[in-house]
């Protein structure tokens, strides 16, 4: 589905410049359910690391392998810790915006990538909402596909209230 080579999906410099008469309609960040799995992994791994460090501190080098275990535990804990907060902070700095002329994905991966991708609304032919599964229906989030052709387009994942977004896009498409 994500055929980025499709023409209306343009990669631009990270600064968003609004055109004359362009209005902001909707703005969102990814749904919080996106963070649940990484948070679970983080809590599990860092807890194990902290337990190993506490054990190493309490035993005070009584066992021969303790320094090595504590070094590995510290390294693993810190790597997982910074990876997790890098992910969370990057996600928190990422926005999906819909204006009267385009959909813009302002994404950040702190210190690695900063992009401003836009999708011109006048080229969109079909809008699809995918909200399969119990959790997606309970927490009201899903994927929003904007298609230019039968299988060319862009899918936005973890969009809160995707039907509202699809409705807003369809209203603009049908106004043309």
């Amino acid at each position, binding site marked *: 589905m994500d055929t980025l080579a499709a023409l209306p999906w343009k990669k631009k410099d990270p600064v*968003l410049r*609004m055109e004359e008469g362009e209005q*902001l309609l909707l*703005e969102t960040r990814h749904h919080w359910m996106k963070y649940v799995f990484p948070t679970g992994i983080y809590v599990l791994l*860092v807890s194990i*690391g*902290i337990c190993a*460090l*506490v054990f*190493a*501190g309490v035993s*005070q*080098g009584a066992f021969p392998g303790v*320094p090595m275990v*504590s*070094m590995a535990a*510290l*390294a693993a*804990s*810190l790597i997982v*810790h*910074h990876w997790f*907060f*890098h992910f*969370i*902070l990057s996600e*928190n*700095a990422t*926005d999906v*915006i819909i204006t009267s002329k385009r959909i813009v994905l*302002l994404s*950040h991966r*702190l*210190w690695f990538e*900063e992009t401003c991708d836009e999708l011109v609304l006048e080229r969109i032919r079909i809008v699809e909402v995918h909200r399969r599964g119990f959790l997606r229906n309970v927490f009201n989030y899903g994927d929003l596909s904007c298609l230019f052709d039968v299988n060319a387009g862009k899918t936005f994942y973890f969009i809160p209230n995707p039907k509202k977004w699809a409705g807003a896009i369809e209203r603009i498409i049908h106004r043309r």
Partner: protein
Amino acid sequence: MNAVQYFFAGMQAISFCVFGLLIFKYWRACREREELFRVLRDARGAHPRRMRLLLICAYAITTIIIFVVSSPMLFL
């Protein structure tokens, strides 16, 4: 100081630098976004300052916890 103590001190120093760099970049990204939504004259997308501070505090507190838990190894 022995090798283990050097390792722990080094890891904590690196960790502190990573923490500072990430917070700096995140803060700057939020300021840029605030500026964008100010240009759009729409406050909907402005990242709430409280949320931003909450995230930074959570990051700082968990980093400090890992430092505190690992610090006994510095004094073995």
